[in-house]
């Protein structure tokens, strides 16, 4: 009798203590801020955000401040929602060269990029000062059907806190990089033939005989799971649109650098675009393209495709876009709520609203100024970065 009670007491004690620790972790905060950019409900001047249990408990001019809340005085600062990098490769490799392409086989829909993610990687830790709080991780562009994306936060105590979506969608690539000299496909026509072949197989898949690839392909072909299609030139984007029309894919374009040239065709089908980082371009003509896309009514998000460009420059893309004509409101939305909507996580992130995750970025100035610096970053209610004074 004694033998059985003792271990169970021990067990319950440890569980209890764990809960106690967990409770201490999520301290309530009351952030007084000069300007709160809610994104969905305008800018609140001299307001307060109440953070409780990792969520935004309240936001307004004079909300009730809980007694135990720690007060952060940011009364001369700007607060924006945590930024969302809709397509990148952080934490996926040992070095700055990301191991994101499993190119031995051209078709790898069953691969899940989350399996390659190391939350303790150096670049993830460094990333916390960037203001980006949620990212979609994706495989590279060297496989026509590359694998499944994942959506993660850049901080978490337990794995569940990190991962928003283990399987976001399937990454497809129509880029020249997907053509190889020693593996199918070697030609663009072959690439299209391969994609059609695989989508047809997906449509024909019957789950009486389990096939991991077939199962995933079926969900893509039936439009139940997003197809993140990487396409840059006009003919690549046109080919993507052809597949969308033929199969009814729930597509999102990745990159779409020259998409402005057929913006109406993209807009017609309500295909959202996760645009390539603007610092990849140097010609005025190319820097203006994203503006034309936005003005055609296409829903936009920005990406850094880190480490190709630094995660810290996600905001730079949006700022450069405003320099070349993008509406500043659209710029902020593309970094936050639009990205969340495109990725299907708008119930959790993308704006400063009651009930959403407490992912907040505090800056010492206008978020759309390059001269503004990030003072503090909060993810799930935890202060994950605080700028040190030199």
């Amino acid at each position: 009798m004694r033998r059985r009670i003792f271990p169970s007491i021990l067990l319950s004690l440890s569980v209890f203590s764990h809960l106690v620790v967990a409770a201490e972790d999520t301290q309530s905060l009351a952030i007084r801020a000069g300007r709160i950019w809610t994104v969905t409900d305008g800018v609140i001047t001299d307001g307060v955000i109440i953070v409780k249990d990792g969520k935004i408990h309240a936001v307004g001019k004079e909300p009730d401040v809980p007694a135990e809340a720690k007060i952060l005085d940011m009364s001369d600062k700007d607060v924006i929602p945590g930024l969302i990098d809709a397509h990148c490769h952080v934490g996926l490799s040992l070095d700055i060269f990301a191991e994101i392409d499993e190119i031995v086989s051209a078709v790898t829909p069953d691969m899940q990029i989350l399996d390659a993610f190391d939350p303790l990687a150096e670049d993830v830790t460094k990333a916390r000062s960037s203001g980006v709080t949620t990212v979609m991780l994706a495989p590279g562009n060297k496989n026509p059907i590359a694998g499944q994306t994942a959506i993660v936060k850049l901080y978490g105590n337990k794995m569940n806190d990190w991962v928003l979506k283990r399987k976001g969608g399937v990454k497809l690539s129509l880029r020249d990089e997907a053509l190889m000299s020693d593996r199918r496909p070697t030609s663009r026509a072959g690439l299209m033939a391969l994609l059609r072949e695989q989508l047809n197989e997906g449509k024909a898949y019957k789950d009486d005989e389990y096939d991991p690839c077939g199962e995933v392909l079926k969900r893509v072909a039936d439009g139940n799971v997003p197809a993140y299609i990487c396409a840059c030139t006009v003919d690549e984007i046109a080919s993507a649109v052809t597949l969308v029309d033929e199969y009814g894919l729930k597509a999102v374009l990745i990159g779409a650098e020259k998409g402005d040239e057929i913006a109406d065709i993209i807009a017609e089908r309500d295909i959202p675009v996760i645009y390539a980082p603007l610092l990849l371009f140097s010609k005025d003509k190319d820097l203006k393209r994203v503006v034309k896309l936005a003005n055609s009514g296409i829903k936009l998000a920005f990406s850094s495709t880190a480490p190709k460009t630094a995660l810290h420059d996600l905001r730079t893309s949006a700022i450069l876009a405003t320099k070349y004509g993008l509406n500043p409101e659209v710029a902020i939305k593309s970094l936050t709520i639009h990205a969340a909507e495109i990725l299907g996580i708008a119930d959790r992130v993308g704006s400063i609203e009651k009930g959403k995750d407490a992912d907040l970025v505090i800056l010492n100035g206008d978020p759309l100024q390059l001269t503004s610096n990030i003072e503090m970053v909060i993810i799930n209610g935890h202060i994950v970065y605080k700028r040190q004074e030199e």
Partner: protein
Amino acid sequence: MMDYKRIVVVPSLLLLLMFTSTFGGQDIAIRGGNILTINDAPIENGIILIKDGKIEALGQDVMIPADVRTIDASNKFVMPGLIDAQSRLFVIDSELRESRTIAPELNIIDAIDPFIKEYREVLAQGVTVIYVAPGSRSLVGGRGAVLKLNGSKTADKMVLKTDVAVKAAIGVSPNNESSSLTRLEHYSSIREALLETKVYMQRKEKYDRELAEYKEKKAEYEKKDGEREAEKKEKPKRPAKFRPNPTYEVLAKVIRKEIPLQIEAHRVSDILNALRLADEFDFSLILDKCTEGYMISDEIARRKVPVIVGPVSTSFVDMPRLEYRNHDMRNAAILSRRRIKLALGVSGRDGASSKFILSAAAMAVANGMDKDAALRAITLTPAEIFGVADRIGSLEVGKDADIVILNRHPLDALTQVKTVLIEGKVVFERKTEQ
């Protein structure tokens, strides 16, 4: 008869006028703007008077002669033309890829293609001057030059100054791999070259001495012709022919401190090696890129070595490079705070990237650099480092009228360059819409 003269004189006068107006300086005035002189305090609502392409006067109470064209800059910012100290404009990519050799005799001016049209977009963002130098693939790649974006069709008309510095690189791996030539070898190869230069200089000096002696003796020998047989003097021997070596000739100038040596170094060990070389040979050192400089800022500050920092963000470069592993956007701020003479460069993926110089400065400010220091780092400081500060870099009486007029503060993301002047001539004017 009189009419005949008039027919000849008047058109030729007109021609003369046209001639002077295109080749000579311009007379123009800028009124009403917020003048950021850079070398001194800003002048609110100031006036700049330009004569013959130079700044004749500037201040709040400047008289503008009646017939001088005036540009209205009210509610605008006026500042000196910007300088990108790490530009690739006009130089085709392949020209930056010499093999790993020591070739200081090469001159970047020979690689310039003035017909590259991208310079217009760069000019439209306020950049009037660029510094171009050979790339980092060679250990010692050649000499860099300062160019003005004045739209010339020939390279020499663009050159503001040639032989600005000899460009070298330590620790930069070609193809982003560790090559067989290790970083230690880079350092020792350059050191060896400098040692050999010293030997060369001694040999040359010896030859010059011997040649002078020989000439003296020969003159004497020929003079005492009659006494020759009596004194049985021997015919003086001419010293062995000395072949000048172009490589060592240029490096000799470095050692004599006539030309600085600009060393691109990223890692702490490479920067320290560069500093060691400067200590040993006592040449004028300029540190280029200096990626990990923030870790050893004291060492750099102590020797008063000027630094050209760039890229401010790794997003500017073509692909993630091993050298930028410890890149920190606060580098410029940290070095600047140590009073190190600091210039900023874009160091972008191609020539057109020079247009991002103001954005680069703004990013440096975001990461701790003082606003004035940042603006100075893209105007006066690079001019000083390259030895052209007598002509450009600040709005001062006597300097070239290279001026940029913006509708907002230059570090404001939404600022637009409205007008650019080079030597008083309007070379860019933004059309009303945009």
